[in-house]
């Protein structure tokens, strides 16, 4: 919880005044500056006018569908976007992540969770290019030399296991969807073969996690994909 010296500006696009107010309280108390828009078009204008550090986008906007806003924004901006969705809409979540959202939260959510997700997005955006070394829970991945060590000892991974880990590490703390992983590792004909992922993820967890049955770092995002959480979780 280190508020940045010059407050980072967050653009909130949501049509519900009460949600906007509460988001403003939460964000301002955490040291961010907040700008608001209540429609998709207004939000796009705001974002173009002065680039925010991150965007919080509600999907149920009255004028333009949320994923439409996302697609238009992505034509000219790489600003981190956190999407807000309602109860159980896995297919839309996946569509939005594939359309360029960086993370999502399901309503109703708590303020602490929102701030944690936002911090990760901002940190990633500031870090720029991913570093060659990725560390989490006693594991160090050296992406340049294709080596993995756990508690100091070299770890033997098969080529496929390494590819999977490298992909998640390249997008660390971000969700990588099933479709993205399958396409990257097995090519387009593996579309929909989720069982490949389940099996390889199980093997990877057994090699990397302290308790493979309740993984802390190689996290499953139900119905969507996986996330390598590098924080202490």
């Amino acid at each position, binding site marked *: 919880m280190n508020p940045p010296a010059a407050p980072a500006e967050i653009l909130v696009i949501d049509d519900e005044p009460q949600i906007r107010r509460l988001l403003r309280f939460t964000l301002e108390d955490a040291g961010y500056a907040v700008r608001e828009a209540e429609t998709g078009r207004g939000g796009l204008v705001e974002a173009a006018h002065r680039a925010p550090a991150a965007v919080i986008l509600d999907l149920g906007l009255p004028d333009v569908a949320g994923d439409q806003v996302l697609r238009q924004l992505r034509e000219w901006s790489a600003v981190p976007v956190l999407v807000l969705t309602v109860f*159980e809409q896995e297919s839309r979540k996946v569509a939005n992540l594939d359309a360029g959202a960086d993370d999502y939260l399901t309503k109703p959510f708590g303020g602490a969770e929102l701030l944690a997700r936002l911090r990760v997005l901002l940190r990633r955006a500031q870090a720029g290019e991913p570093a060659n070394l990725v560390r989490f829970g006693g594991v160090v991945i050296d992406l340049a030399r294709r080596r993995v060590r756990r508690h100091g000892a070299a770890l033997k991974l098969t080529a496929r296991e390494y590819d999977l880990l490298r992909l998640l590490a390249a997008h660390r703390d971000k969700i990588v969807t099933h479709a993205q992983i399958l396409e990257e590792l097995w090519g387009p004909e593996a579309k929909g073969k989720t*069982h490949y992922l*389940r099996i390889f993820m199980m093997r990877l967890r057994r090699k990397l996690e302290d308790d493979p*049955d309740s993984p802390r770092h190689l996290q499953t995002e139900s119905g969507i994909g996986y996330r390598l959480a590098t924080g202490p979780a």
Partner: protein
Amino acid sequence: MEQNLLSPWAVTPLLDRLRRRRVPLREYGEVLAVIAAVTVLGRLAPISYRALGHVYLLAVVVLCLRVGRWPILAAAVVSALAWNFVIIPPRLSLSVLDSEDGLLLGTYFVVALIAGQLLVKREEWRAAAERAKLLAESERLHRALMDSVSHELKTPLAVLRSAAEALEAGPPERRRDLQREIRTAVERLDRLVANLLSQNRLEAGAIRPQLDWHDARDLIGAARREAEGALAGRTCQVEVPPQMPLLRADGALMEQAIGNLLLNAARHTPPGSPLRIMAGTAPREKRAFIAVADRGGGIPPELRGALFRKFSRGPEAGAGGLGLGLAIVRGFMQAQGGEVSVGENPGGGACFTLHLPLEGHESVPNE
């Protein structure tokens, strides 16, 4: 949503079935048997053919009480033919009738037709009575639902309102308590809304399971995170065999089903009592299972059947709750081709088991 809550029982399909019911062949058989009996009686007994005409008429009217409209018309036609062909002299040929016999036959047909019409009416009345009964039942259920929904909604709302007022006016050292109350009320509202939406989707037939391969550990992990608040202060032991095969299921439905079982256990067993979550397979029955076992009071066998019906609540359920949780679990499991059952946990307590068909996936390329 409104629409579906208003008709918890589907009234129309039952009425349709009533209306479309095919007249069974048995009724035609009965008609033929009765007329044959009267005809045989007429041949053997020494009574005049006119008197026998009345017996035929009586038989048709009596048949009215037993069979449907088309069999009755058939009865009228067949008995008229039999009467004419077999009974009225000259026998065994169709006779040309004199005016009196013609009048008798005419009256006879009119009576049969009226009887047929009355039958139609009788069926309509019966259907209307049936419909009224169903409507009354559905209204009663609807009222019961509305009563308990409004109670369930109003309680947390009342908590939120008075907590907000107390935050404004009360002493600062109360804040922490009030925050806890607000959080509990919000969790309760959250769960209620989620359950009502699920039940509504189930009743509207809007649940289209998206079956995919899942690791049982992922499903259990997600459900545990969902129920984290309610499970605070309990040990929760998870046992999944290393060789556990992947499950073919809808991830979101399974997580909610397991989550509901965990919340149920948290609510109905003593605080701090341990829980066990087990996964495994029963290869002989070609089924996989995930079970939640508690150390509470258990469920008496005579209550187990009713447990999964909606709005059904155990006698010791205590305040709060709509009785939807387990009905939703059953609905979700059946939608995926599975089932839920309840039994005893050896050593005391209840054990709820989710069953899924055990399916094999094609092999995974090794490298």
